[in-house]
């Protein structure tokens, strides 16, 4: 019975993700295509000029960076509390993607900061807490690689991921709590002009779908690698 529970889930995931993947891949391409088209059709902003175009790749990268961390945190909780066998694999598979999107957020942010603020970087709360997110990703991945016993590595990595969750609201509210050069939230509050909102939403959706697609493929890859390892072990026994 235990055996069935352990292996039923990866099988189920392979079936489900195999069916869903073509659709998320096509939807990703459509959203990014339409999003890019609209991104280069907007008029210059009255304050920021043409650099408003950076909004459409900067904010989506940041959103996915935090979303990926949230996904890791949820999977880590599932792993610690319910010992769901697939959740460690899923959490580990999301980390490099999250780190990449975090790096993209930092790079596009720096390239936006220079023309608008006069500097690539300031050590204010938003930028520093976002840089910390990148280091948490690195620490999380390093911890996985440092411990050979996979069960122990999974437990410790899950604990680290859950501790790191405190950084997420700090990033979110840093622009409200501390003085900063970074502009405040403008989507939910409706302050952003509709002409910029639509390309931004499409690009955000495209980035999120791209993350989900790549994440699913990475989990599938990890499942096959585990099967191969099990076969190798069975063969040598």
């Amino acid at each position, binding site marked *: 019975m235990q055996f069935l529970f352990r292996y039923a889930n990866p099988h189920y995931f392979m079936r489900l993700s195999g069916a869903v993947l073509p659709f998320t891949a096509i939807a990703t391409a459509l959203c990014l295509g339409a999003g890019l*088209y609209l991104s280069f059709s907007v008029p210059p902003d009255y304050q920021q*000029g043409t650099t408003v175009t*950076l909004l459409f790749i900067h904010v989506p990268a940041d959103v996915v960076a935090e979303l990926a961390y949230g996904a890791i945190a949820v999977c880590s909780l599932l792993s610690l509390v319910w010992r769901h066998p697939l959740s460690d694999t899923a959490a580990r598979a999301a980390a490099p993607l999250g780190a*990449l999107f975090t790096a*993209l957020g930092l790079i596009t942010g720096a390239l936006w900061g220079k023309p608008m603020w006069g500097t690539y970087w300031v050590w204010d709360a938003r930028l520093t807490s976002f840089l910390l997110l990148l280091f948490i990703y690195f620490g999380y991945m390093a911890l996985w690689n440092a411990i050979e016993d996979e069960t122990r590595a999974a437990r410790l990595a899950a604990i680290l991921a859950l501790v790191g969750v405190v950084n997420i609201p700090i990033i979110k509210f840093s622009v409200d709590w501390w003085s900063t050069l970074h502009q405040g939230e403008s989507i939910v509050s409706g302050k952003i002009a509709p002409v910029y909102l639509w390309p931004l939403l499409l690009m955000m959706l495209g980035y999120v779908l791209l993350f989900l697609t790549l994440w699913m493929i990475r989990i*599938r890859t990890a499942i096959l690698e585990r099967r191969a390892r099990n076969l190798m072990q069975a063969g040598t026994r």
Partner: protein
Amino acid sequence: MNFDMGSYSVYIWPAYGVSALALAGVTLWTLVAWRRAKARLAALESAQGPTAQKS
């Protein structure tokens, strides 16, 4: 569509370039890893014969 970013081109195009390269790169890397894992498992399964237990 308008690709003339004026004097801000030096900031905007590198940002788009890095993003496009990184996202295309990670997509390629993910697909290559998937194909490799699939091929390796298939090779192992055929080497162990049809009686090999699926895990």
